[in-house]
Structures are given as C-alpha cells and as structure tokens.
C-alpha cells in the first residue's frame, strides 16, 4: 500500500505543477510526470511477487507463475502516444512563443485580443 500511495504522490506533484506554474514548458514537464506515475501505477498493480517476465523460455514447464501481461500491453501503447501528444503541446508552445515572445501564460492572456 505504501508504494501505491507514493506513486499517487508523484501524480499529485504533477497536478500541483500544472496548477501553479506559469511557464508553458514547465506545464509540459508536469504533464509528463503525471503520465509517468500513471504508467508506474498500472505496472505496480500487475506485479506478482516471485513471477517471471512474461516471455516463455521453456514451453513445457507451464506452471511457472508469470507477471500479468495485460497492464504491460496497455502501458506499451500509451508510452508512445504520450510522447507524440506531448510534442503536439510543445509545438503549440513554440507557436505561441513566436507570436507573443514569452512562455508566460499570464502575459499571453493579457496580450490576447
């Protein structure tokens, strides 16, 4: 249970960063940290103590316990998506930087219009 709570604290650090930072790049970094904690949470839930990695080396001895492969599958696809969507947010950020000359969201909000 300690591990789950620590993992969720990592998520909360990301939430705190998104809410309080004013720099767009810092917001992207906080989003990345939130994604990391979600990945770690999924893999933590699927772990079985004493289990092996989900790659079958000897097909005959099938009663060896194996770690749950389903969360690992979900995280595998989500990790690649996370990088692509993060770079989309970064593209928006540099577009805004070119127009307003700053990464500060509060100043962008004032200059708008």
């Amino acid at each position: 249970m300690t591990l789950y709570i620590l993992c969720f604290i990592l998520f909360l650090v990301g939430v705190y960063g998104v809410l309080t930072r004013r720099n767009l790049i810092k917001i992207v970094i906080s989003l990345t940290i939130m994604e990391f904690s979600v990945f770690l949470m999924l893999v933590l839930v699927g772990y079985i103590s004493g289990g092996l990695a989900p790659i079958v080396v000897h097909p005959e001895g099938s009663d060896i316990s194996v770690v749950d492969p389903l969360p690992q599958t979900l995280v595998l696809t989500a990790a690649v998506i996370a990088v692509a969507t993060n770079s989309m947010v970064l593209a928006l950020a540099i577009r805004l930087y070119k127009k307003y000359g700053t990464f500060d969201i509060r100043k962008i909000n004032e200059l708008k219009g």
Partner: protein
Amino acid sequence: MEGMSIIVKKIVQLISALIFVFGMYSAIHGHINPGGGFAGGVLLSGAFILLIIAYGLDYFKLKQQTEATSIFESLSILIALLIAFSGLFAGSLYFFNNYFPAGTPGSLISGGLIPIYNVLIGVKVAATLSTIFFALIIYKEEIRR
C-alpha cells in the same frame, strides 16, 4: 543549425549505423525477445535524429524527407489494415484473424502474422517520430531566417 566537427561526424556515422541495425533486429525479433515494433521504431528514428544533429540541416534536404516520412507513415498502417481485413476472407469471420500457422514457439518464423505486424508498426513509429522532429527543426530554421 550547422554541423559539428569532423570527429563527431565520423563517430556518428559508425554509431548511428549500429543503432539502426539494432533497431531492425529489435523489430524483427519482437515476438521472441523483449523489444518489438515500438522499441525498434523509436531506435530507428533515434538513429536519424543523431545523424541530423551531427551533420546540420543543410546536409539533408529535410522538406523532401518530411514528405517521404509522412508517406511511409500512412502506407505502413494502410498495409497493416489490409492484412487485418484479409483475415475476414480466410477461415472464420473476424478482424485481426491470425490465420498463418503458429509454428514452434521460440523460433524466428513463428507466431503467425505477429512478426509482420511488428515490422509494420516499427516503420510507422519511426516515421511518426521523425516527422515530428523534422517539423520542429524546419520551423526553428525558418524562424531564424
């Protein structure tokens, strides 16, 4: 962004070739080893990114490269979709029908259609990440001029 010195260029030539070969190995052996299409694709795009950082922008005609990568991206996923559809006509009626023989687990030719899908998704991931990186670098360069 101009290129780096001759030492960096030569070392990067050797290293990026090794990274490229490891990426292809990882994508082809995805069904028996850890790795697979996602890791292989990211490694392939990493080899290209390393080359571009070392050689600078003027060495490569990046605009044509971007068009080529977006064509590869669309094409690979189209082929994967067609293979998945072809399962409808072979045997039982469902999508993603793995109609090839399974083979002996652990050998290179096994797992039915899974190695083919692995290679295709590797090409797709490599093309996507390269497209994103090229777009960012071209934008930065156009701003500076």
